């Protein structure tokens, strides 16, 4: 049972990690806590659903179109709403993303109605692989693979490509980056697009795992946010580690101690860990100058 709990935990953790990564990408560059991340992923998933189910588009094309939609949505939000804020406070930005979350939630409810649906997905959520007695469903297995590959690509991207380095530069010092010739405004839009795409992947995987309906991202968003904080909101590997840890801890607690307090205990552990290491597991702690 222990092994099985850990494996399931890792599979769930991979989803949390993807959302955490999406949130971290944005937080890293622009210090916005994006609470609309979940609903952005949700609406992208609904677009994928419409393409796959109603229009019978083959999966790879549907995927590409969904990504396109995710990018447009994120850039639209960044340009039309966030950038227009005059001297925004941190809280003001949070409220803007929350407002956007409501708009998206309302839109999806209006367009597709409240009923639950099943997302047609090439990988089954019922069949499973059996590794020496450890059962892992195909969808969980592929979730793990997809997240690992995605994390690796993102790592390479931020480390070696010019654009990735420019994004890191913008995060460290916006003014200096601009002086060095980086178009920081472009960078912000790009950040949002990238994050929205990662979110869309997470949304589709979560919907494929279970059910597609408007509130499907509420719980994963909170857990993803928690994973991001656990790993340190400015560290991508931290977000991945945070997600995996959170998934495993939750499952072990649920399996051996109490199912009812499973969700809550994750938060308790995070608070305790944060008290010991206030900026998360893998993020550097900067001391602010006065």
């Amino acid at each position: 049972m222990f092994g099985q709990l850990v494996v399931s935990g890792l599979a769930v953790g991979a989803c949390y990690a993807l959302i955490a990564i999406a949130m971290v990408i944005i937080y890293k560059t622009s210090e916005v806590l994006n609470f609309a991340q979940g609903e952005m992923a949700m609406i992208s998933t609904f677009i994928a659903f419409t393409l796959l189910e109603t229009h019978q588009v083959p999966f790879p094309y549907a995927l590409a179109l969904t990504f396109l939609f995710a990018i447009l949505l994120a850039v639209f939000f960044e340009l039309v709403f966030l950038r227009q804020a005059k001297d925004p406070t941190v809280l003001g930005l949070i409220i803007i993303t929350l407002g956007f979350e409501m708009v998206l939630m309302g839109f999806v409810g209006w367009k597709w109605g409240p009923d639950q649906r099943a997302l047609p997905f090439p990988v089954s959520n019922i069949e499973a692989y059996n590794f020496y007695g450890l059962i892992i469903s195909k969808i969980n297995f592929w979730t793990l693979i997809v997240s690992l590959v995605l994390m690796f690509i993102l790592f390479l991207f931020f480390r070696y490509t010019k654009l990735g380095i420019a994004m890191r530069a913008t995060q460290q010092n916006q003014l200096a980056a601009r002086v060095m010739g980086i178009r920081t405004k472009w960078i912000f839009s790009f950040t949002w697009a990238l994050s929205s795409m990662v979110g869309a992947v997470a949304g589709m995987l979560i919907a494929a795992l279970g059910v597609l309906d408007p509130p499907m991202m509420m719980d994963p968003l909170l857990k993803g946010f928690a994973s991001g904080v656990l790993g340190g909101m400015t560290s991508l590997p931290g977000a991945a580690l945070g997600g995996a840890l959170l998934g495993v801890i939750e499952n072990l607690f649920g399996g051996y101690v109490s199912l009812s307090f499973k969700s809550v205990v994750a938060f308790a552990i995070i608070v305790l860990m944060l008290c010991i290491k206030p900026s998360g597991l893998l993020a550097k702690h900067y001391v602010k100058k006065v």
Partner: protein
Amino acid sequence: MVKKSLMFVGLLVFAFFVTAPASAQAVRGVTDTEILIGQWGPQTGPAAPWGAVARGTDLLVKIINDEGGIHGRKLKYFLRDDSYMPAKTKAIAKEFVEQIGVFAVVGGVGVATGMTARDYLMENKVPWFSPVTGVYEWIHPIQKYLFAMYPLYDDEAFNLTGYLHEKLGYKKIAMFYQNDDYGKQGVMGVDRYLLKKNIKLVAKISAEVTDRDLSTHALKLRESGAEAVIIWTMPTHAALLLAETAKIGFKPQWATSNTLSDSALMMGITRGLWAGMINSFFSELPDSNHPLMVKYREAHKKYAPSERWGVFYYAGIAFAEPFVEGVRRAGRNLTTESWIKAMEGMKDFQGIGLPVTYAGLKDRQGGKHVFYGKVKPDGNIERLTDWIRITK
């Protein structure tokens, strides 16, 4: 400055007390040509799928008005969205009574939401016909103006367990329920039956409403070695659990409450795993040949073709039919008292839902029957029994 302002205020106060009060109606919500009724239901938010009930009632109202109304009066229906938030439900109840002045409240999904409005409606003597949940809160204590119809979860679970145990011979029964009022009263019934037979549930696993990962729950159920598992949750959790158990190769006989009787929906979201489910039902099946069902299906095509003909959509009709029948029997001289008298005399009235019987002030739980069915692989339902009385 001070004087002026004070005078202004004085004038306001004066104007206020001088204006005469509006004349009161003879019976609230009943005019010569109209009967006003209202219903709340979650149209937005996580509980929105249940909002179909309130829209189904709208269809019934349209059908009745099309046929000329009841004794020369048309029904006027007010549908309000409470998003499943108690604070909003109470605001709606107050609006119904203080501002719109409805004759009665019909239906209404939700326990926590309905409970905030219950005492208020009763104090103001507003008839409330059948909240669409089967919990004891509606009939304990008995309220003069509140008529319940939805079969009690407790009795339903009691009988379902009996059916699994006696008719189908399952000995090891487990339960998977949602951690709230609804799930708890289901557990109550299962426990009550098993206690009588001196057997124990092999596992009692609960899920929180917000949980979206049920792998641990599935593992625990498999560990218990149950032969039959009773599910008492919302559709999402049932679907998640079936997927999780299927992949770890755990295939017991499933059984569930009538809350999950929308098998078309459930087949879709479980990707076919729903087949073989033993289910209890509170109304005719969606494709039934019952003459009323045929009539309603036609009206549905006419008035609301874009709505899905799901169980909870026409439940909105089923849980309003006895109310309408009561209004009909009360006659042209419709008052709260005459309606209550008509309702109290109702015996085995049946529309498309379960038969309804009331007996004076002693019994306000009108619905006491369900029937069982088994979901076929094509999503249709094989009817296993006729209407069975579950509440003794």
